[in-house]
């Protein structure tokens, strides 16, 4: 077994044990952190590994969230099919948006993805008869059961989140070690060179984006399922900024950076919410400081300075 896999498994094991060690409040936080880490890991595949700065990932998160919650709430779909619908919805939306947006690069790509995300958010508002708009709707507890486990209970929620987090982490770990993942990194490092080595850069970027968006959709569906709520604010632009923040802080292009960044920021927000309503102010300050002084993030800097084998 290589060091990267060992590290990933250790983290998963540690998280598995943590539930019994931590107080209930922190365990609840950790469940939320893990789900948002899934979101950030999806984003990281596009941004950290392929170099695609998208401001539209809230659209993909929202597609998964609404895909699951709308089918469960209004169509009475059982859990597993609803999850499948969510993943398919996210994949399809990403595939279409990606095909269009990837015709652009850099700043234009950023603006195009932003526009699509905004359009998605507005669409969620437009159909508020079903989505209940900003107010959102609650997924009743009786729907959130799986194989006899009550997913709304502290333990059910935690281990469901951990399971999906583990699956995603190991998947990402496998992707970035494989030739496909290495070619994404090559595209990020020098796109022209990658093309002139024979790599089909457009197709690879699109594939990366589709996987990235589907993972983000998984996070959205999981969030709705485990926390029992779906609302338009999760599809709004600030929600596209959050994974960027987590990834930058934790370390773009590292597998565990998203988890580190999410944990850090959520606790930072939590602490500052006691002081002021304006917790996004902290987000702003952190973003500015990060990009000025620590552009590689925590794990990225660690990897560069001390641990080159860090995945």
């Amino acid at each position, binding site marked *: 077994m290589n060091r990267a896999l060992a590290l990933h498994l250790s983290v998963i094991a540690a998280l598995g044990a943590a539930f019994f060690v931590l107080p209930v409040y922190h365990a609840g936080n950790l469940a939320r952190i893990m789900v948002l880490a899934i979101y950030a890991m999806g984003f990281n595949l596009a941004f950290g590994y392929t170099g695609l700065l998208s401001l539209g990932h809230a659209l993909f998160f929202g597609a998964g969230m609404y895909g699951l919650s709308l089918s469960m709430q209004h169509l009475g779909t059982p859990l597993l099919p609803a999850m499948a619908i969510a993943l398919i919805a996210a994949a399809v939306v990403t595939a279409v948006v990606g095909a269009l947006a990837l015709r652009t690069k850099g700043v234009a790509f950023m603006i195009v993805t932003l526009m699509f995300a905004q359009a998605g958010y507005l669409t969620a508002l437009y159909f508020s008869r079903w989505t209940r708009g900003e107010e959102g709707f609650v997924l009743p507890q009786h729907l959130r059961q799986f194989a006899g486990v009550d997913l709304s209970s502290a333990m059910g929620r935690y281990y469901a989140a951990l399971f999906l987090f583990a699956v995603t982490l190991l998947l990402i770990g496998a992707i970035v070690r494989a030739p496909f993942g290495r070619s994404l*990194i090559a595209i990020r490092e020098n796109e022209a060179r990658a093309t*002139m080595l024979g790599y089909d850069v457009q197709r690879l970027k699109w594939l990366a984006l589709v996987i990235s968006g589907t993972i983000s959709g998984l996070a959205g569906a999981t969030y709705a399922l485990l926390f029992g709520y779906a609302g338009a604010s999760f599809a709004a632009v600030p929600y596209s900024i959050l994974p960027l923040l987590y990834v930058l802080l934790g370390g773009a292009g590292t597998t565990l950076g998203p988890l580190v960044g999410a944990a850090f920021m959520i606790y930072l927000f939590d602490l500052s919410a006691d002081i002021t309503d304006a917790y996004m102010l902290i987000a702003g300050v952190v973003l500015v400081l990060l990009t000025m002084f620590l552009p590689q993030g925590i794990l990225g800097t660690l990897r560069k300075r001390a641990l080159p084998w860090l995945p």
Partner: protein
Amino acid sequence: MAALILQTKGLTKTYAGVQANTDIDFALPQGQIRALIGPNGAGKSTFVGMLCGRIEATRGTVMFDGQDISRLPAHRRIALGIAYTFQITSIFPGLSVHENVGLAARRAGGNEATVSDVLARVGLTDRAGQSAGDLSYGHQRILEIGMGFAQKPRLFILDEPTQGLAESEVAEFKALITGLENTTILLIEHNMSVVMETAEFITVLNHGAVLAEGTPDEIRANAHVQAAYLGTEDA
């Protein structure tokens, strides 16, 4: 007469009224080492850009190994067996030397053995773990050539490969190039000693069109070529 690996007919590039390349007919036999020379602005890089697909031709066809590749995007042409080094060195500076070569080898179906082989051939084995961006300019250029080797190309196009290299590195380069088997080489060069000592055949471009073609001795004696370089040749 050896089979032609590369052939162009009427290859032309026009930029908003300016003809960068005009009606170039070019034939490159398999296994040959061909040099493409000409004064600055003659259109050499544009021509080569159209060959490998980085620049879209306005008119004309490009045939590779009997196949019409005029409509193929760059990465597909590369995948058919062409390697290309940029005029300004283009590698992956944030990745290790080993990974740079690995990326090239993997795409062309090579493996670990290919990478070690190439690193040994270009003399970068003990730098394998180093970050490519930390290499000296000369070593980066050699790395890029090594990446070309790793692709085991049928046709290797090099755009001014010795530019910026020290004398010893230029000598190394000459040895590397002449030591290749089963590879056709197309070399854009300004360094005349490299051209005269490695090339079997030379094509001279001037003002975007072919001025002369011949063996090194023939070209050396060609009055038109001399005049073009001295700037007294008419278009």
